[in-house]
């Protein structure tokens, strides 16, 4: 392990950090959208940002990490690359699943918006109904009172 360049001792290039920042910002913005397709794009962009982050964590590029070569120049750290490969495969699977979900949602409802929770909406509507009922009750009482007054007035 000592041969490998570890991230603790070295710093990645600034360009990589810049790219990670931009991708991260774009991905986060897309993730906050309502449409599942945009969220999906956000996930893809954001996970690429994270993949680059993992690569950057391995330090600057060195020579290929092969034991047979004779030079003494510092080797590239192979572990982040292995991790990135795993992460890419996982992202691929999740992307496929999200695509299927967006398609199914479009099949069922004609759009792929992420909807509000049904219960939350129900509570909101219940509150509105409650307000409405209170208004009606108040109105009825007012009318009844007015009627009483009318009756009293005519007798």
């Amino acid at each position: 392990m000592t041969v490998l360049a570890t991230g603790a001792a070295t710093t990645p290039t600034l360009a990589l950090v810049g790219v990670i920042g931009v991708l991260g910002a774009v991905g986060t913005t897309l993730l906050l959208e309502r449409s599942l397709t945009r969220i999906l794009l956000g996930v893809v962009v954001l996970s690429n940002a994270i993949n680059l982050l993992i690569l950057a964590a391995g330090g600057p590029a060195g020579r290929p990490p092969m034991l047979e070569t004779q030079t003494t120049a510092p080797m590239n750290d192979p572990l982040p690359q292995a991790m990135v490969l795993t992460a890419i495969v996982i992202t691929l699977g999740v992307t496929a699943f999200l695509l299927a979900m967006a398609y199914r949602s479009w099949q069922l409802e004609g759009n792929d918006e992420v909807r509000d929770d049904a219960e939350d909406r129900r509570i909101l509507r219940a509150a509105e109904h409650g307000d409405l009922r209170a208004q009606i009750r108040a109105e009825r009482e007012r009318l009844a009172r007015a009627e009483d007054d009318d009756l009293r007035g005519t007798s």
Partner: protein
Amino acid sequence: MVELTGHLVPLPVVLPLLAAGLRLALGRRWPRLQRVLSVTTLSVVLLVSVLLLVAADTHGPLVVQVGGWAAPVGISLVADRLSALLLVVSVAITLAVLVYSIGQGMVDGEEVAPLAIYHPTYLILVAGVATAFLAGDLFNVYVGFEVLLTASYVLLTLGGTGSRLRAGATYVVVSLVSSMVFLVAVATIYAATGTVNLAQLAERLAELPPQLQLVLHTLLLTGFAIKAAVFPLSAWLPDSYPTAPAPVTAVFAGLLTKVGVYTMIRTQTLLFPGGSLDTLLLVVALATMLVGILGAVAQTDIKRLLSFTLVSHIGYLVFGLAVGSVHGLSAAIFYAVHHITVQTSLFLVAGLIERRGGTTSMRSLGGLATLSPVLGILFFVPAMNLAGIPPLSGFLGKLGLVQAGVAAGGPLAYTLVAGSVVTSLLTLYAMARLWGYAFWRSPSLAVAATPGTVLESPGEPALTSAYGPEETVGPASRRTVTGGATTLGGQAIVTTARLPRTMTGATIALVAFGLALTVLAGPLTAYCERTASELLESGDEHPTLAPGGDG
């Protein structure tokens, strides 16, 4: 003997994956054989886990370097007391739920298209949970999480109906975000220390400057807290769990959040043992308990109510962890075991209720205690257990937590003790309310309770009125309620007067397991104490790199 059991460590991961592959390859052929295959696999895994538990308790942690690569580079699987215990409980739960869902599938005659993937996905979920528990490095914890989460996405949206997609979208996006936060944490930790091996991390993280430690610590805890549904990050859970099929919700409730708690325990004891952020965790635990249980009290749907109690009781686990003492941690571990069992049984009972009554809405149910006394008992025992009525295991767990809190002292700890007692009482209230509505009142009341009449009764939150005029016509409209009675595939359920024997049997077994935890509380508490002291005292000697483990 030690050598032999050492080789067993990868089996809880490998066996379910193999069985899942076999089931996928077999497709729809020989359904009976396939059911036997799934049940046998999980039974064998249960046996293996018990062996691991015994071995880890007597001989210390078991370590396997997968593929023979040495620890810092290769993948190591570690079974210590904590992971072995949680593994045993998880596998026992999943086995019971598997039998239950086989019963449900047989009754509904569902071996058709979307359901052909149910069992393989379920087995992959088990493999993912086992990976997360056994992983000896941070990146494999991430892989384990992803395996179980991806399986859970499929299970949650099974059948692809509208309501499940809606719930699934929230769940998938939130889980993705939590995974990304976790992955960022893994990357930054690697950048800072040059390793992802838990044992090496324990040494190297301690050498970092405190500010950097705080950043990494917060990143990790945030990722795990979303998965564990700790308060400000818990809103996704009650929105997404109730729409899934009953067995799926049951296994999610039992396992997924607890895997998050397990990783939080590892973070606090192994990676960042200094007790920093404990105060924050205490505050968050209090908020989780109170907000969760207040949500539960307001619900009228049984599954949603149970989802809220699930969130609320995660607070107890975080409380025990944040107290930071051996007693607190051991009580938290005991409580985790208890809560996995009880919460899963309650969700299974909710599935039985919806099969008997055609709905899980408390307002439309009634008289279940006379209609089906077995169902009454099956609900009553775990409900009282959850509320913490002595002498059940819920009471013992809460007592342990309260004692640890009092021993810790200080105003915040006392507030938490008070908060946990209040939460316990409110849980009892929520359960009693459910019992009163669904089980005790006369069945005629429930049938007569058209949404209009319920609406007029004073002091009641008029939730039923809000379905909209087009949906509030009669009993048939109850099918449109979220969390209403649906089969695994998402079709409306056919209610039966007689409960399917396999489903009832599995539920009875699980409730009995919960009672067994009460009977065996003595040995179990002793085991949890040993686990907690192992975690807290030898924090920097995580066994991954132990010389005996190079197998």
